[in-house]
């Protein structure tokens, strides 16, 4: 399988150069508060010196998809240029009361909830326009959420590459092996996007999967 994958990657790289194909579009997906924007910020800071967006402990801080084109990552002796899309957290429910519990007033909570629903729709729409997905999961949480199952199912149905990131391994209760056991068919890298733990391994895996 390794030989076939390597041949496929070499051929796709060759044809991309031959036909001047656009950069691969990689979406960063996951449930709210998994650390998607923290990871996007980490990648951009490491390779462009810039940042993608603000982060917050209150869920649904990212309510519009953000795209950064032409991010060049160097790993495994190769250079890979990607368009990175940081998507709003996917959810099947959005209750404004949860924002009020975090100290927001009712009007702001309702506005945030409304914007969050639009963000989820945008994130779902982006699924049809990607070349691969980095699925960020919180390593302190149960990995069998509907959002994770749906994103993985969509990538498998489209035969697109998927890389699972078990985030927040800097926290003592993190247990990335639970995620590995839940989805053994996909590659996984355990990191802390906040602290930068194991981030070089992530870049190597990104180059391997999306190069």
């Amino acid at each position, binding site marked *: 399988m390794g030989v076939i994958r390597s041949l496929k990657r070499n051929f796709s790289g060759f044809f991309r150069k031959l036909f001047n194909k656009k950069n691969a579009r990689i979406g960063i997906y996951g449930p709210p508060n998994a650390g998607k924007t923290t990871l996007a910020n980490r990648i951009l800071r490491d390779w462009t010196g810039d940042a993608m967006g603000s982060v917050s402990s209150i869920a649904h801080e990212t309510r519009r998809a953000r795209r950064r084109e032409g991010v060049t990552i160097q790993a495994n002796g190769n250079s890979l240029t990607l368009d990175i899309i940081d998507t709003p957290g996917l959810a099947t429910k959005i209750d404004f009361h949860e924002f009020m519990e975090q100290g927001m007033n009712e009007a702001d909570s309702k506005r945030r909830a409304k914007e969050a629903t639009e963000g989820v729709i945008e994130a779902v729409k982006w699924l049809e326009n990607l070349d691969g997905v980095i699925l960020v999961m919180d390593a302190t949480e149960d990995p069998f959420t509907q959002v994770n*199952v749906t994103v993985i199912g969509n990538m498998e149905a489209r035969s697109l590459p998927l890389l699972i990131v078990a985030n927040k391994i800097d926290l003592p209760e993190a247990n990335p092996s639970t995620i590995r056991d839940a989805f053994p068919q996909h590659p996984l890298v355990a990191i802390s996007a906040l602290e930068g733990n194991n981030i070089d391994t992530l870049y190597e895996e990104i180059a391997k999967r999306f190069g």
Partner: protein
Amino acid sequence: MDLLSEDRLSRMTTVEKIRFILDEVKSGKILVLERGLTPQEEANLIEMTMTLIDPDDFAGIEMETYPAHEDTSLMGKLFKKQPKTRLTVIGPANKIKTLRKDRDMITALVSATK
């Protein structure tokens, strides 16, 4: 609670399935789908749910399904067969709460209050 057979759902188009599920869930029902939805249908259902969320009336859905079974046989890999979908529970977010879930078991709390 309604238990929906695979046959019943297979006679519907994707749009009909999603409309039917959301109408039933919005009316307070919990649905158990024998064979679940395809990943694309799940994504469509999430999208449509978001358009119906109303702060004072409908907070969304709770949907629980097991990860799909991938055909790992040589034939399955060669012909890229769709993963087999599995039993799925869908209900209003204010009536059903998942307590625990693993590859083959879902433990959920169902509330009768509105």
